[in-house]
């Protein structure tokens, strides 16, 4: 019986069926549910672990693969930047057991800070990249990736994307098949130790390997597929873009690439020779188009297909019109509907979120706030407008350091979350203590990795498999890093929060503050009793509204009210109201 699985569920299934013994990763949308599903369905079959960051995750998987096990590592696209160091060198040694790096790109930046195209890493690391177009292929390609990795002793990248990972489609389930060998590291320094003398030898092997893979990708693997149609137009496509091509160009001949790098040059050349004109349809960059042009295969691509944002059948219809020299006409019914101006509905910090207390308090100070990646990035939205920069994981501390050392007069506050602190905040903190950067840095410790849907981290005292573990102590780490001034505070206590911010930002020494209050979504009960506003006492000053709490509703005509279904009882509104109008 076929099952309806998301791409991420299918990848977890692929690990199970493909005989993986270790799966590692760091959460990041749209990749997170891969490992969550491993733990949910298959933890009796193989071990799965969250790592503190993607570099550690890839190295853990590489270690297992070095010992001959099949290992997988999962991350979002920007995570591969963090893991790029081990990837580019493990690509030299390869591993006896399969090493597959699953990376989830986010075209359209639904939940990301950039739109990088991870296929470039395959070229950079000289390893193959496979791109499934639906859930069944996600499972099948992952199993194929294990086979390729072991046959050629190369890491393999499997690139998924938001629409592959988070779409459901039907998958026929298979059985688990374990590789027929004993796991155990075989000492082999010439192939496993990258001192220059050995690395130079491996450098040659990598190049030969790539050539062999390229030839076999055209002839042997059967992962690329030609769907014969009209000879007038041939389309080369890959990943989710294939699905849109089939909707918009039903007549065209299609070469669907399952592995676009190394380019299956021979196959593409044969395909190109069989049609009058070749169009390359790929999401984000012109990766395959450029590779084809470099190989001397005439084609067009980004001339018509956008390189910004994700593709869809609608986007391709516009590309088609452009190519045919006609005007794209969106459907008639779309034109006259919904011309009423609608209020934006951006995601917000939840009602009762402990981050709200800090951001509201920070607004009272003349400081620059250097932010980071996590739920707290939602604090950038009005009315809080509390963060001045957000770049990547770890910058909350290290960029605050740099800004503080720049010679500027205004004080600098850096913020990041507990999971981000373990990911890449600790080294930044060590540096702040070492080089004495006069800034205040805050760990927003809500006891969970919240934005990606509540994953455990080294501070939660539990592993992905559900085992109890010793929770890392952030204050003790701060002390060990050499921080002299460390304070913990309750962000839902407005007075306490304001006082510690004042003390630390007026000091001329570095401060580490730890905001301790759990994410409201992991609490079984409300933070406190539901609040309500007494309309008699309320002067409509709207200070409570400026906290940005979604439970406080008002329009331009009405005084604020508190939605009792949304209120979590955090009492921040209560504390900031000057007229005593808010109570339990």
């Amino acid at each position, binding site marked *: 019986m076929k099952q309806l699985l998301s791409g991420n569920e299918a990848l977890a299934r692929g690990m199970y069926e493909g005989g993986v013994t270790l799966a590692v990763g760091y959460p990041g949308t749209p990749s997170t549910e891969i490992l969550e599903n491993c733990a949910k369905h298959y933890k009796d079959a193989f071990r799965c672990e969250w790592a503190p960051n993607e570099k550690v995750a890839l190295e853990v998987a590489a270690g297992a693969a070095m010992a001959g096990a099949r290992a997988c590592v999962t991350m979002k696209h920007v995570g591969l930047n963090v893991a790029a160091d081990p990837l580019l060198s493990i690509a030299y040694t390869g591993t006896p057991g399969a090493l597959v790096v699953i990376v989830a790109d986010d075209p359209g930046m639904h939940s990301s800070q950039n739109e990088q195209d991870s296929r470039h890493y395959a070229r950079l690391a000289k390893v193959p990249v496979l791109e499934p177009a639906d859930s069944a292929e996600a499972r099948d390609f992952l199993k194929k990736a294990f086979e390729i990795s072991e046959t050629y002793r190369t890491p393999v990248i499997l690139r998924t994307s938001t629409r592959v990972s988070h779409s459901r489609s039907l998958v026929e389930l298979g059985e688990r098949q374990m590789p027929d060998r004993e796991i155990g590291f075989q000492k082999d320094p010439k192939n496993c130790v990258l001192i220059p003398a050995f690395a130079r030898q491996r450098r040659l092997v990598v190049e030969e390997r790539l050539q062999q893979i390229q030839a076999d990708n055209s002839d042997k693997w059967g992962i690329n597929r030609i769907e014969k149609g009209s000879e007038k137009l041939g389309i080369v496509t890959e990943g989710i873009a294939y699905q849109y091509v089939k909707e918009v160009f039903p007549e065209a001949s299609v070469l669907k690439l399952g592995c676009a790098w190394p380019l299956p040059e021979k196959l593409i050349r044969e395909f190109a020779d069989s049609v009058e004109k070749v169009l390359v349809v790929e999401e984000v960059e012109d990766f395959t188009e450029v590779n084809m042009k470099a190989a001397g295969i005439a084609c067009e691509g980004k001339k018509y297909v956008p390189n910004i944002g994700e593709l869809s*059948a609608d986007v391709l219809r516009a590309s088609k019109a452009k190519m045919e020299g006609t005007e794209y006409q969106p459907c008639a*019914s779309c034109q006259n509907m919904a011309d*009423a101006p609608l209020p934006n509905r951006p995601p917000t910090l939840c009602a009762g979120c402990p981050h709200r207390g800090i951001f509201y308090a920070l607004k009272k100070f003349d400081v620059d706030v250097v932010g980071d990646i996590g739920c707290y990035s939602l604090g950038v939205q009005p009315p809080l407008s509390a963060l001045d920069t957000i770049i990547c994981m770890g910058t909350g501390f290290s960029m605050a350091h740099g800004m503080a050392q720049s010679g500027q007069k205004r004080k600098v506050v850096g913020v990041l979350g507990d999971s981000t602190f373990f990911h890449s905040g600790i080294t930044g903190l060590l540096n702040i203590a070492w080089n004495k950067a006069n800034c205040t840095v805050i760990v927003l410790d809500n006891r969970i990795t919240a934005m990606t849907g509540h994953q455990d981290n080294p501070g939660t005292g539990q592993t992905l498999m559900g085992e109890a573990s010793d929770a890392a102590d952030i204050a003790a780490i701060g002390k060990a890093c050499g921080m002299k001034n460390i304070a913990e505070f309750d962000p839902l206590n407005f007075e306490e929060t304001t006082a510690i911010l004042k003390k630390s930002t007026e000091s001329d020494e570095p401060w580490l503050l730890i905001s301790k209050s759990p994410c409201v979504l992991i609490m079984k009960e409300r933070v406190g009793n539901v609040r309500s506003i007494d309309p008699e006492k309320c002067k409509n000053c709207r200070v409570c509204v400026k906290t940005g709490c979604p439970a406080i509703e008002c329009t331009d005509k009405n005084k604020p009210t508190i939605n009792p279904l949304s209120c979590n009882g955090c009492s921040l509104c209560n504390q900031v109201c000057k007229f005593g109008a808010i109570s339990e």
Partner: protein
Amino acid sequence: MNKTTSIVLAGVGGQGILLASEILAKAAGFAGFDVKTNEVHGMAQRGGSVIGQIRYGEKVFSPLVSKGEATVLMSLERIEALRYADFLSPDGLAVVNSQVIIPTTVSSGSAVYPENAKEILKQSFKHLVYLDANRIAQELGNPKCANVVLLGALSTKLENLTPEIWEQAIRECVKPKFIDLNITAFQTGAKAPSEL
């Protein structure tokens, strides 16, 4: 051109779009169709505007619904139907819950919630079922089944899915103790007359 049936579910993160999407996709699967869905995860969920997309038919390629293609647009919040109105086909049915959720942009004074939302809905949609699904669900004993009430109203437009198949899908998707409640909610929604 193709016989794929497309449905868009709109609402606010946390309103129960995922369950409605799952029931619908299961039903289409039980009926023997190829089916694909797409959901929103991550940052877009935290109280933001969200959509779920379901497509089924003999062979489905794109998991995403094209503009002007949806047979039904169902919205769990009053104005979210308008945000995604351009997905609906000219003869499509809009199923709209009367619930209002004020966005923080309105509370903070930077935007206005349209007062005449009902009028705009009437003008925008040729075929409209407008229900107070929260009240109906409350009367049935649990406000959380409002999404299934609306699903019942939506089902009237999908003739290729029989009541038996819907019931089977509901049985598979909800916890055993809520099965009867949800089946009643579904049936009530299917019969409920539009309140606009």
